[in-house]
């Protein structure tokens, strides 16, 4: 509680990496842009063909390199452009999140959301709420490689 207040006071801007699948979520992000639905600028999007391209290694790499939050967005289950990619993503990320939590990493530092190409609104809302979550969690100190401190 105190920590989060302190963060707000110092204008703490969490660094967030968002992996977005090309067919749904990246288009959703474009949709948010077209509709001018804003979200924090410290969220940077990396385009991948499908959410199933996101190796847990990339997520860990982002944390290691100092990202405060990582969010992975893909098509809704059942709507995957590649039929079943996001089903694998779902299992992979579920296990990864469970393990991160088990290792004592704050729940919520990583999130998976299904955002379709039509859900520009949802994209922006999701990003805003995720940024809020990360803000309340504060800086990622547990997974960061100390050498990467800026």
């Amino acid at each position: 509680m105190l920590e989060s207040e302190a963060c707000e006071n110092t204008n703490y801007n969490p660094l967030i990496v968002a992996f977005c699948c090309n067919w749904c979520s990246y288009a959703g992000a474009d949709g948010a842009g077209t509709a001018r639905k804003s979200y924090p600028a410290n969220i940077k999007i990396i385009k991948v063909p499908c959410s199933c391209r996101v190796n847990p290694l990339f997520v860990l790499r982002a944390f290691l390199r100092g990202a405060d939050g990582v969010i992975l967005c893909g098509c809704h289950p059942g709507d995957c452009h590649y039929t079943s990619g996001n089903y694998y993503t779902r299992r992979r990320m579920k296990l990864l999140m469970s393990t991160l939590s088990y290792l004592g990493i704050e729940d919520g530092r990583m999130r998976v959301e299904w955002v379709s190409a039509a859900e520009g609104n949802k994209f922006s809302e999701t990003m805003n709420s995720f940024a809020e979550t990360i803000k309340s969690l504060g800086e990622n100190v547990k997974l960061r490689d100390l050498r990467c401190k800026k």
Partner: protein
Amino acid sequence: MQKIGVFVCWCGSNIAATVDVAKVIESVKAIPDVAFASDYRYMCSEGGQDLMQNAIREHGLTRVVVCACSPRMHEATFRKAAEAAGLNPFLLEIANIREQCSWVHKDKEVGTEKAIALAKAAIAKVRFNSPLQAGQSEVVKRALVIGGGIAGIQTALDIAEAGYKVDLVEKKPSIGGRMSQLDKTFPTLDCSACILTPKMVDVAAHPNVTIYTYSEIEKVSGYVGQFEVDIRKRARSVKADLCTGCGVCQDKCPSKKTPNEFNQGLDNRSAIYITFAQAVPKVPVIDREHCLKFQTGKCGICEKVCPSKAIDYTQEDEIITQKYGAIVLATGFETIDLTKFGEYQYGKSKDVITSLEFERLTNAAGPTEGHLQRMSDGKQPKHIVFVSCVGSRDVSGRGKEYCSKICCMYTAKQAMLTREKYPDTDVTVFYIDVRTPGKGFDEFYRRAVEEYNVHYIKGQVGKILEQGDHLLVYASDALSNSHISLEADMVVLATAIQPSQDAKKLATMLTASIDNNNFFTEAHAKLRPVESPTAGVFLSGVCQGPKDVPETVSQAGAAAVKVLGILSKDTLATNPCVASCNERICSGCLACENVCPYGAIGGEEKTVINLNGKREQRVVSVVNEALCQGCGACTVACPCGAMDLNGFSNKQITAEVDAIC
């Protein structure tokens, strides 16, 4: 060390208003292997492309980053331009600084900072881009059109006319779709059947068209140029080749209590039936659920009466597997379910009907042979109330948020026709807005008001009550800001339309995306309105969004042209962003094979050079590049990193992550 060129687009003020372009240039110039950086007002314009091409040639650029709008907009444009300048098109990356930066951030400092970060990420990635060569895949010169309404018919005809084979699949026993149910069409008031029927006949008679009615899509695999589709041809129980369509069977059929779908359930049909008089094919179908022979084993009258021995109770569903080069979706629409709109008494009072039911009621081939009468007592209504926007533009969550687009016009049509045929009938229309953008539309509406004296009241109907044999309509009059109530003999609800129920299932099968309302999503709202984001899948008609007949027909033609664009080629360039396996590292665990949605990966025992540079024989994964669609599922399943994806390699993504963090 690469020689990277960075080009930053202003997009007029779209980007430049929120991103300090000069500062972006300055920042990227400091990156070691950035050899050239420049900005331009519109990079996508000829001038912008020239700038890029000249820089590639003059500075010997080995990689290019364009900071501009979404790659979904102009990646192809810039890649083509780069290729023309002699650079492999896949050595170019886009930093999306419009949709994902300038348009979502207001503060210029913030926007600039983010644009720099995105540019850096793209630069980091492009360093590891490798030149890719698109492969080739053969095109099957046959198209599939799903849905046999006016949209599907027109698309099929246009493709067939151009000389290509096309299969038209319709779920119902006859093609024709919604348009065949309509009486007249606005604003010209042609008879719908009169203009549709010839087209139905044409398409059925066309040597290049094969029609599968009473059929559904079972399975779709493959990709543009090479789709493989299983079509389930449901058992009709009537041999189409023998049947003459005489109709004796349906006359003699003892089971006549099934609601007639074609007439929106306003009357009943027999268990063996021909949908409507002009049906194509004019071959009846046995509705096994209601057929006595199928339900009880007794009967068999139709078999006995059929003069051409066409009845076949043993017929079974048939699966037809066919390859196609392209697919068109033309699945049409249906009216929404009104159970949530209890205030209108729909379903409770027989005299509250939907506009589609009204069409059947006024159609000469309809249940009343075209006589306007109440379904409750058969009397001719003296006062009709039309309610528009029932379930359309509805934010209450009961209906649809979108405008169904066609209601204003058909309501005007129905009101006008009523007044014309029955001048003594009083017609009132309640509306929120009357939307008439279309050729001759407003004139048409004004005629209804001015010439035919249809009462238009701006206001919403709050409640309808049955009172004796009348209906009491409670409404608000927005102009006089008062509550009014009036008596009516019949109420017609201009019910919202929605995509056909099958759209969702098809979307999944075709990996075509649909929006929140189950309308198919187009690849680009403005520039690619008939293409779905899935290559080789096109959209025709209302399945993409509400449309009237002429719009549907023009989109159907457009979809056909897109299909022809594919079928006219012998081969298509395949997406070179496919998976590839590093055989030196691959351990042959074949986790990749297990996750591949396309069966594009298999294990092969091969002689490979191992990590020590020695030959050895072992199982390794082999990717069939023609089948691979580049999703990347295999790359993550692979524990040792042997499997990688061109264009989105481990190194590229890691570099992006590093650049951002």
